Every structure is written in C-alpha cells, then in structure tokens.
C-alpha cells in the first residue's frame, strides 16, 4: 500500500480549465489515480463500519415527519375554506412529497439502508409518491446514471435527451428553443422522469422498436394510473362538492415538488463547472478514474441543514456520486474529508449556494441553445 504523494502540479486556475468542455482538464498520473482510489475507499469503509442505530433512527424520524406533513396537508386542503389554510395545506403536502422523493425514496432506493434489514426501508420493496415506478428508476438512475455519470451518449440524465449542455452534442435548429423545453421539463418533472426509460429519442432514430419497451410501458401505465387516481380522483372525490378545490391543491403540491426536484437535480450535474466525458476516454476505466469522473461531473450546493434534508442531501452530490450507497445523512461529515482529498490532488471541489449554482445551470442551458455554445465564453 502506497499512500498518495502530494501531487506536484501548479494550482489550477479557472482559465486553465475549459469548464464544460473536454480539453484542458487536468488528468492525474496512474499512481495518483491509485492513491485517489485508496483514499476514497478508506473513507467509505470508515463510515460504513460506523453505521448503526442512529442512522436508522434518523431515517425513521424523517419518514415520520413526512407522514405527519402528508396527513396535515391533505386535511388542510380538504377542510380549508379560505386561501391561507389552503395554501398551508398545499405547502405541507408539497413538502411531504419532496421529502418522500428526495430524502426518503431516492436514498432508500439506492440501497443506503439495506444493511438495516428492515423490509420497510429496503431498496427491494420501496415505492414512492411519483409517476416513475421504482423498478424503472432503479434501472435508469441507479444503474445507468450512476455508472456512466456524465458520459455523453451513455448517461441519459445528461441533458435528459432534450437539452444540449456541451459542445459534444451537435447543435440543431431545434436546440434554439431548449430554454422552453427546460421550463416544461421542470414543470412536468415527475412525468419526464417516468418517461425517461422510454428513450423516445432512440425510438425515433430506430435504435429499437416499441415492442422491446412493452414491459416498461406496462409499468409506466400501472404506476402513472395510481398517481392520477390518488391525487386527481380519489382525494378530490372524497371532498364531494369541493372536488375541484382538492384537485387544484394536489396539482399545486405536485407542481411545487416538480420545480424543486428538477432544480436540485439540474444543479447536481449541469452547473457551469460540471464536466462531461466522452465514451472513448472512459474505456477500460479503473476504479480510481471512475471516482475522478464522479468527482468532476458533480457539483454541490452549500447551505443550511434544511436545504440538505429537502434536497435529499443531493446538495452533497459529489459525496453521493462517490458513495451512492452510504446513508445520505453521513455526507455532511464526509464533505470536508472529500474536499481535503480533492485539494491534495489539485482537483476542483465544485460547490456554491443554491441560487448561484442554479443561475449557472440556466446560463448553461441558454448558452448551448446557440451553435457556438461553449466556444463563446461570456
């Protein structure tokens, strides 16, 4: 075992790295990649060995709060006759959906709590309150996105097949309107995620035909129908004459969740500094190089405890990508250690406040709607 030596490189300056592009990225030596792997592996093992009752209690608590909020939200929407309690109900229901999707569903389905052997928080059984069914999400997100993070052409989360975010993707006239697609994707995010596995872009170019997608489509309709039934039929119908009020409240809660979830998720990989990779450069990748790609392709959000919980700790996107199956509530304590390792190897640790990071996402979507894209540094 060799411990990594301090890399002897000049400090990177912003100018030296052409962010978002593929050139000028600082690569490590073979030994440095090995050192990087050892340090990250050691950090993961240290935390994994320390998992215990406190982590399970944390998740149970979060689930409890989520349930209380959902019950309170639906009750308020039902029995409110003035705007203020109605809006409070919408907010509570929306927050409960956000917690269910982000801090609970996302993390549990990554298998972060499988070690606890509690069927109620095991990735095998968990289903969440969104249109995308758990199985489909585990295939597209857990497997595809987390394995091929930011590899253009392989990671379909990169731009969701509708956005051009780097020069690697060729510009077409349709790209001029991508700010509009971006807005639509944000508004209908849960359906965008649910449709993700359809791979409509590949369907269109004839890579495969619809028949192969039959099992997926079945799952999509089954889960989609349940979501529609719950929010737009069952609970509104319970309210009898106030059907439309409850339906509106539920739609607003879903909208709130969609906007928030999409914003957080776009901040994870599409910020100005997050880098993309080509298939060729990732061939025969070692574990060290995989860590490196996860690190450079992700970006964090700095902020309060509330932001971390509400984002499902995706504010620690870097830590999440390095250690996807470590319980997210541990990322906060891992962050400084990851940052330290980055500094040691002269690698960027991309973080910033939410509005700043989201601003760079918007800028990037806008910039690449033009053919010049990354070449034109504004």
């Amino acid at each position, binding site marked *: 075992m060799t411990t990594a030596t301090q890399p002897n490189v000049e400090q990177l300056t912003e100018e030296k790295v052409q962010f978002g592009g593929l050139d000028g990225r600082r690569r490590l030596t073979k030994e440095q990649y090995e050192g990087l792997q050892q340090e990250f592996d050691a950090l993961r093992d240290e935390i994994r060995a320390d998992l215990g*009752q406190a982590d*399970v209690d944390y998740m149970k608590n979060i689930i409890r709060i989520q*349930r209380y909020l959902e019950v309170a939200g639906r009750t308020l929407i039902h029995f409110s006759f003035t705007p203020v309690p109605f809006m409070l109900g919408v907010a509570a229901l929306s927050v409960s959906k956000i917690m269910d999707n982000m801090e609970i569903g996302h993390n549990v389905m990554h298998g972060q709590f499988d070690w606890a*052997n509690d069927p*109620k928080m095991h990735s095998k059984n968990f289903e969440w*309150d969104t249109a995308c069914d758990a199985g489909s999400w585990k295939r597209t997100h857990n497997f595809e996105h987390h394995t091929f993070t930011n590899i253009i052409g392989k990671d379909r989360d990169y731009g969701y097949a509708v956005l051009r975010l780097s020069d690697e993707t060729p510009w077409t006239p349709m790209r001029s309107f991508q700010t509009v697609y971006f807005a639509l994707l944000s508004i209908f995010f849960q359906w965008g995620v649910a449709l993700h596995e359809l791979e409509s872009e590949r369907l269109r170019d004839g890579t495969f035909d619809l028949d192969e997608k039959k099992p997926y489509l079945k799952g999509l309709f089954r889960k989609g129908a349940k*979501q529609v*039934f719950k929010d737009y039929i069952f609970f509104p119908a319970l309210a009898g004459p106030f059907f439309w009020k409850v339906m509106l409240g539920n739609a607003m809660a879903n909208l709130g969740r969609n906007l928030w979830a999409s914003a957080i998720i776009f901040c994870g990989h599409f910020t100005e500094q997050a880098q993309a990779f080509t298939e060729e450069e990732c061939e025969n990748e070692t574990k060290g190089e995989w860590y490196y790609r996860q690190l450079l392709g992700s970006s964090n959000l700095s902020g309060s405890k509330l932001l971390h919980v509400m984002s499902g700790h995706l504010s620690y996107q870097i830590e999440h990508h390095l250690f996807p199956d470590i319980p997210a509530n541990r990322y906060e304590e891992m962050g400084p250690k990851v940052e330290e390792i980055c500094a040691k190897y002269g690698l960027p640790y991309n973080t910033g406040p939410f509005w700043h990071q989201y601003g760079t996402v918007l800028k990037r979507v806008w910039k690449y709607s033009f053919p010049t894209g990354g070449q034109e540094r504004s």
Partner: protein
Amino acid sequence: MHSQTPSLLQRAQTWINSSLFNTNRAGEYFEYLLEGVDPMWSALECKARIMEVRDETADTKTWVLQPVKNWGGFVAGQHIHITLSVNGVQSTRTFTISSSPYQWQQNGTITITVKRVPNGRVTGWMHDTLKTGAVVTISQAQGEFVLDKDVDAPVGYIAAGSGITPIMSQLRWMSANNMPVPANLLYFANTQKDFIFGSEIKALAQAARRFTGNLIASYDDSDSKHKLPQSPICAEHIQALLESKPEQIYLCGPHPFREIAKQLLAEAGYNLKQVREEAFGLPPIKVEAGAPVKVSFAASAVETTTDQPGTLLDMAEGAGLTPTAGCRMGICHTCKCKKTSGQVRNVITGELSSTEAEDIRICVSTPVSNVEIDI
C-alpha cells in the same frame, strides 16, 4: 399457505392501498407513526416489553416479557421469533418460552432464557444491551414440542445445555398442575454451574413424587479439564430412563448431542417415532464432492465461485451484499428472492428445486449447480 389467487375484492383493495400509500398493506404506511407515539403500538406486529432481566448462570440470562394484550398465548414447549434492532440491524432469532402458561394467564408475562453464544452477534448484544423497558417484536407462538393432551403415560426428557428451556416450561406447567403424569429428566451440562434452573429442578424433584431429575455434569467444577467418569450421555443413562417406560421422549439440545441420544435410544430398542425433537438452527450442510459452483447475484453484478457452498444467504452476505432476511431458518419468507437459473437444494428437507426460474428462500438454499439469483 396463501397461494390461492386473490379475489377481485382483495385485488382492488391491494391496488387502492398501493395507490394511496405506495405499499400493498396500508398498515405499513402508519407503522413508524404508531411506533413514534408508543413503541408498543403496531398495526402489523405484536410488541412485547422487557419487564425484568435475571441472571441464571454465568452465560445465561432470563428476560421477562410482557406481550401486548392481543398476543395469542402458547402451549408449554412452544417457541417464538423475536425481532430486535441490533445496532440498527433488524435481526430475528427463535427462542423457546421457558415460563409456564400459568404465568401468562396470571400476570400476562412470559420468559425466554438465552445463553450467550460465543461470538454470537445477537445473543451477545442481548446480554449486553437488552434491558428492562426495551420493546421487541415477537411472533405468535408455534412448534410441536408440546405435551399431548390425552396421554397420561410417563414422559421422558433428555436435554443438554440450553435445551432445557422448552422442557422447563413443561415441567413448570406440570408442577403447577400437580404432576399429572410421571416424568423423568436427564439433563446434561459441562459443569454443575452450567445447569440452568438447576436448583429449581432439584427442588421440584424433592417436592414432586412423580418427577425424577438427573443433572449430569461432564466436568468437575473446580477444574474444567477434569472429566468426570459418568459423562457424557451413554447407554446406562438411556437404560435408566427407559425403565420408567416413557410413552413419549422429548429431546432438546445441540445437533450432535441429539444424534448420539437417538442412536443410543435406537440401540436400546426404543421406537424413534416416539421421540420428539426441538431443533433450532440449520443442520450442518453436507458438502458434495464435485466441481466448484458459480453463484451470480445478477442485480448487484457480483459473482462468487466456491466448492464449499453454504446457504445462498451466507454466500451473498459473504460477498458484501445485504439481502433482507428474518428467521434465517426457512420460516418467515422474508428472504425470498427470484432464482433465474440453476438448481438449489433445501438444506432442511434435502429437496432439490427445479431448474426453472422461481422464488426461493435463500436462507435455506444451497446451490447444487451454477445459479443466478436476482439480488
């Protein structure tokens, strides 16, 4: 078993539950909420509170449990599964109830008596951490190691170590019932100090004319290396027991001990059909000579090859995976997974599976060919 196809009504109910709560059982949605209000509340399970912990021997303790009111009770000799959270890991183990059903009727408590297993993750944790006031989840009582109602002929008991617990429950019940039938006990332990309930058994033997209790130690107390002449179980012990003409013999102890006892009984001409055994844990897995088998855990993209396969659950855990499991002995079906190809053997029944894709319980399955499992 619940293998009939569900009725239309049941299916509709499941569909609505899964729409509203994202789980087929509505109770599951409320489970952590109830637990948060009162740890004894549950929509799905039976809870029990620890009322007292007592030392029995140096490495054995008794826990007094008070189950929720609607727990179904038990017959002397039965066992329960207990689920507890050991450092956050939900673990299920099976223990015999050592108290008499009278105690349950009188004050609503039952006891379990547990020996610390060297290096045992769960029993060790129980001994160190499971204190008065804690709440655990218990199953309904089950098991056939019970007295037949209509038999009034003598019974014989053969126990070793903590195998005394289900027998103690029966003895306590019979003593409270004025010893309805003559009973003879052979109880083996390493030293005098290791007899669980030793003094209670001796007192009972003195008080009850129809009960004979023999406590047989293998080693001298003062020097654990000094073997006593009468140890361990041998033909004379069996002979003495059979003189009382027991209609039924109850046998409980470690697997090798039970094998020896049964062999001696058979040699003495006793019909083994009249022997009732209580066995926890799995019998040792017979390794078959032959080529190494390859096990692929497909969903996790992990593969292991071995010529000494254990249970698939152990193999998966050995490979760093964490499939859900409960009883680890084939009872609770928590560990059920889809086997997509290959053949496995049930380590309890010895039965071979089909080679088709099917659901198997990985805690009691060992591979006999290359298998692929959806974990």
